[in-house]
Every structure is written in structure tokens, then in C-alpha cells.
């Protein structure tokens, strides 16, 4: 580690590889770069480039290599997984093989990116919370593209690569498994998604509100809270009865975001092997406003 820092400090030409965007003043740090390349970053980029190439090549094939059609039809073009008859086997290129190749390289590029983030966090002597939370998002990706298809025995259960393909998959997945709104894990995931939005808005607004009291430097405030932090905490105690601290608010943020992703992943994984029809589950759980015949426990009467 020490020698690595020494190399960085002596390599001025790399440190000077940066530029500034004036228009970002007031919005963000105007400095862009230096960007760390690294082995894992190179692998991630190369594998991602292969993924993009395979997908775009598939799109071009579908439009007969016509660039006008490519642009016009781009939102509806897709590279689809193999049909159910191939199960988990390798399929011919024209029948889902391209999808398998693209997904393989995409998965690896995501994993390499995770390792890159991890290595940079360690190199900067940070706790690895960023890569850990990123793993939750990768868990959701893996649940949709890898775990669920393997558990069901067919790559066809995964979405295709394309804008419309993603939407069509979400719709079809929900229809097949009996209306995903009745999946309790989906309910929790939505809570996490909307809760994250709410929490981010609350936190962002609060920090901006305390800037005039010079309390927006969060790390300083976490160590030694001043008037601005106290006033912000008072605001939330008045509004909703309790408040977070400068540190705990970020724990809240991580927790709700991770809940969203992990619950979503579990909802996808459990669809099929555990519960094939979430609406029927909701009938049994008694949360469906169905037509229940008085005095009966027959769940079939919930909705025929």
C-alpha cells in the first residue's frame, strides 16, 4: 500500500490529468478526473463493450443492417433469450445464443466493476460499504437473469436485452405469476423504493437548509454537531416526533435502499418454485378484496 501511494505521489503526469467544468459551479465539484483505470476496470470495460457489441449487432441483424431502421426502431429492438425448449442448454446463436453470450459478458463486467469499487475503497482506506451496498443491486440483477431462470430450468424466464423487451418481460412476469402487486416481497421492495426517494429528498433538503448555518459539511457535523445540525434535528422532531443524527441518516438511507433491492430479488426468486400464483397466495392470506362467501374457508371462493 505504501509503495502504491508513493507511486501516485511521484507520478505528476497522472495527477494532472484533470479538467474543470465551470458550468457545474454551485451544482457539483467542477473537477473531472483523474479517472483510475486499473486492471479490474479494464476487464469490466472490455467485457461491457463486448456485451454492447453483441446486443447492437443483434439489433442490426433484425433491421437488415439498415441504419435508418435501426434508429427508428431502436426502442423496440431486442436480443431475446432462447425458447423454453432449450432449457438451460447453450442455444444456437440465432435462437438465443447471442443473448447467452451478452448476458455472460454483462454479468462478468458487473462483477469486475464491483471488484474495482472494492479495490478503490480499500486503497483509499475506506470502509467497504459502497461495494457491499452495490452487491445488493447485483443480487437483484442476478435474481432476475440467473437465479430465477436456473431455478425454473429455462433461460427463457429472463428478460431480453432491449428497451421494450424489459417492459414486456415485467408485464409478462407479473401476468404469469398471478399479478406481482400481490407478491409481498414486491410490496416491501416498492416500500423501499419510494422510501428511498422520500428519504433522499428529506435528507437533501435538510442539508441544503443548513448551509446558511455552515452545517452542510456532514463529516464535521458527524464528529461535532453544531447549531445547524441541531436546528435540523429540531425541525424533524417537531414535524414527526423523532430525528436522525448526521451519521445515522446515512445508515437509514442504506438500509431502505438495500431492503428495496433484496426484497425485490427474493420476490423474483420465490416466484415459481415457492409460489406460482401470488394472487392465490393473497386470497389465502386474506388480503384480497374478493368475493368471500360468508361462513366458508374455501379460498376458491375468493375469485373463481
Amino acid at each position, binding site marked *: 500500500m505504501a509503495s502504491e501511494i508513493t507511486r501516485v505521489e511521484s507520478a505528476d503526469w497522472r495527477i494532472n490529468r484533470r479538467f474543470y467544468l465551470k458550468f457545474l459551479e454551485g451544482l457539483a465539484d467542477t473537477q473531472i478526473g483523474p479517472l483510475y483505470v486499473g486492471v479490474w476496470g479494464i476487464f469490466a470495460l472490455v467485457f461491457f463493450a463486448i456485451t454492447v457489441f453483441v446486443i447492437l449487432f443483434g439489433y442490426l441483424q433484425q433491421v437488415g443492417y439498415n441504419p435508418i431502421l435501426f434508429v427508428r426502431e431502436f426502442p423496440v429492438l431486442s436480443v431475446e433469450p432462447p425458447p423454453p425448449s432449450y432449457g438451460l442448454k447453450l442455444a444456437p446463436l440465432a435462437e438465443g445464443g447471442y443473448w447467452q453470450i451478452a448476458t455472460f459478458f454483462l454479468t462478468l463486467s458487473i462483477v469486475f466493476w464491483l471488484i474495482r469499487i472494492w479495490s478503490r475503497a480499500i486503497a483509499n482506506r475506506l470502509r467497504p460499504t459502497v461495494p457491499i451496498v452495490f452487491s445488493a443491486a447485483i443480487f437483484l440483477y442476478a435474481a432476475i437473469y440467473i437465479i430465477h431462470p436456473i431455478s425454473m430450468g429455462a433461460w427463457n424466464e429472463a428478460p431480453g436485452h432491449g428497451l421494450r423487451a424489459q417492459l414486456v418481460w415485467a408485464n409478462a412476469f407479473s401476468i*404469469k405469476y398471478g399479478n406481482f402487486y400481490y407478491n409481498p416481497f414486491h410490496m416491501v421492495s416498492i416500500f423501499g423504493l419510494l422510501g428511498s426517494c422520500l428519504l433522499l429528498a428529506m435528507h437533501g433538503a435538510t442539508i441544503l437548509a443548513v448551509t446558511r448555518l455552515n452545517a452542510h459539511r456532514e463529516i464535521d457535523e458527524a464528529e461535532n454537531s453544531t447549531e445547524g445540525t441541531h436546528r435540523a434535528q429540531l425541525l424533524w422532531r417537531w414535524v414527526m416526533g423523532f430525528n436522525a443524527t448526521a451519521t445515522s441518516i446515512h445508515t437509514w438511507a442504506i438500509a431502505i435502499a438495500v431492503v428495496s433491492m433484496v426484497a425485490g430479488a427474493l420476490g423474483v426468486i420465490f416466484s*415459481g418454485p415457492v409460489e406460482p400464483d401470488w394472487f392465490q397466495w393473497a386470497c389465502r392470506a386474506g388480503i384480497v*378484496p374478493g368475493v368471500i362467501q360468508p361462513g366458508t374457508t374455501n379460498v376458491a371462493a375468493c375469485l373463481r
Partner: protein
Amino acid sequence: MSTQPMEDTPKGAIAVYDEKQAGILRLEAFGLVAVSIVVLGLVVFAFLLTKGLASTYTYRGEHTYNYAGIQMTDINAYIQAKKVQVQPVSAEALTAYNAWATANPKTVNVQVLNQYLGDDYNNTGTVFNYMINYFSGGLGVSCEYCHNLQNFAAYELPQKTTAKNMLVMQFEVNNKWINNVPRPQGQPLYQIQCATCHVGAPKNWNKALKASNPAAFGIEGGGLPVSYDMLDEQLLKTRPDPQTGDVNYYKVTATKDTPAGLNATYRNQNQMYHQTVALGVGCDFCHYGGYFASYYVENGSFKWPKSQARHMIGMVQDLAINWWPQVQFPAPETVAQPNCYMCHRGYVVPPGASNTAPQPAQVSSPLIKPLEELPIPKPVTP
């Protein structure tokens, strides 16, 4: 940005703004109001702009969204709206008919109408009225399109043979499928007639039309290779269960035994999109939105349209398997598959359906028999 508390902050004040901050706040408030007005104006403008398109946009069109099964537009209004070029019966044809009728008050070589509609159709005049109303009116053609004007009884033109076969098909399909549509008490019963499918044109259902109107023909993806026709191999092979009479054209909602894969669901969705376009309705016309597999909604009422649609899919299957191969189309390679839009044309009740057409009798030995006796699925009723 001010980083020091205001020296002249009033006692007890939580927030005090200097002039610059107050000015920014006023500007932001003004901007918010201005943007809201502009956005609202754009929405109103867009609404006014697209209002004229409502009549041509039949998806979820209120003029077709009726559960009572009442015909919302008739064939003449539809033909006018679509600007179909209808050829009137020519004076030459009428003159030739008058001469023929005078010479032959009783029909010569009528093979179908008298079988299905009774002995009245042994009279030339009765047959002529039927021809004018249903054939000429429904196809928008004059008599010479099918007939030799010197000999109305002859089968010289192939169109006449095709028309005869189609007449048998029409009566057989009415008897087998239309008269057995599951429907609530009080809902009118319509009959298929020539106009139901032809809609004022002799050749109206072809692959050229299919290329220009993919949604109506059940193709998704705008003509791209990812496409489905309504009657694929799977649907053509599906038959009702011989024991229970149940049929499941599309196995969509999963059970523990459902095979893996989403292709069946994608395929079903394309069929559903076709049906929304074909009938000009939304999904909840047939379905309970909370659970598509159900025939009931949460207040206990029964979804008759879903049961009717299921029955109708069987009818389209029958058309494709039994009748299309036998009607002897003049150019069979140009004819598209039958589907929902062929008759419904964006309406719940097809514009060409009739509740005044004469009801055919059951004929024990029709001129054309089905290639395969397809069983009618057991109807789903409350």
C-alpha cells in the same frame, strides 16, 4: 452564500432572509407559477390537437365500449366512414335480371339458399332480394361480378363458386358458433352475413392489407421479425378436453406444473393486444384487472365478454382449419388468416353483423362439410 448569522436577526426568529435571498425566493415562486401555467397550456393544447383523432382511434373508444352487446354502428355508416368504394348494381344487370326473372319465376340451380332458408327461396324474386341485400350490399359489387348476365344459373365465373362455398360457410358457422355464443339474458343475438367479413369489398382480407395494418392483424413489433400471427401452430392444435370440455388456448397463469418459460405469456399478450385493437376495448372489458385468469370481478359479477371471447377463438380456429381451405379463394396465396379484426373492425359488435338477417336452418348434409369436426368448448357461465 451567507455563512454567518444575521446580526440584526429578530429575537425568536427561526429564519431571516436578506434582500438577495428574498429576491431569489420571489423569482423561484414566480418561475414555479409560470412553468405550471405553461405546462397546463401545453396539455390543453395537446388535448385540442388530438381531439379530432378520437374518432379514428378506437382503442378504448367510448363509442364501442358497451357491455350490453348493442351494435354501435351499422355497415353503411362504417363503409362511409372508411370511404370504401362500393360499386352499385348496374342498370345492365338489372335489365338482364328482369328478363331472367320473367323467363324463370322459379329458381334454376339454386343449391344453398333453399336448403338453409326454406322453400321461399325457390322463387327467383326472393333469391334476388337476398342477393341485392346481402351479396351486392355486403361485397359492394354488381351482379356481373359473379354471374353471367345471360345465364344467372351458370357457374362460369370462379367467383360464383367461391360465393356459394362462402354461403355454406356462413350458415354453418352461424348454426354452430354464433347461435351458441354464451350471453346474458337480454343481450341481442346477431348473425354473420356477407358484410360481416367483407365490409363492402369483394377482396378485403389479404396479405397486402396485413402489411399496412400490423396491429389489426395481430402482429407485434411493427413488422419486425419478432412477430406472431393469431393462429399459430399451437393454437391450431389446441382442442377442448374430451372429458371435461375445457379448453385452454393459452396457458398463461402459472401453477406448480406450468412449464418454465415466458414465451407462452408473450404470445398470449400479443393475442390480447390484437383483441384490444380488434374490438376497440381495454383489457378490463373482458378481465378483472386484479387477476386476469378470473371470470369474476370483485363484486361477484360475471365477465361475459371473457367467456364470449373464448368461444370466438374456437370459431376463428374452425374458420382456419375447416373453411379457409375449402372455399376456393380465387388467389388463395394472397388471403390472410382469419382473426378478430376481420369482423369486429374496432367495434364490440361487428358493423357488418345483422340481427335482421334470416336465421338458417340446420342442414343434415351440407354441400361442404368440415374437414375436422371441431368440438365446441364447454361454455363458461356464471
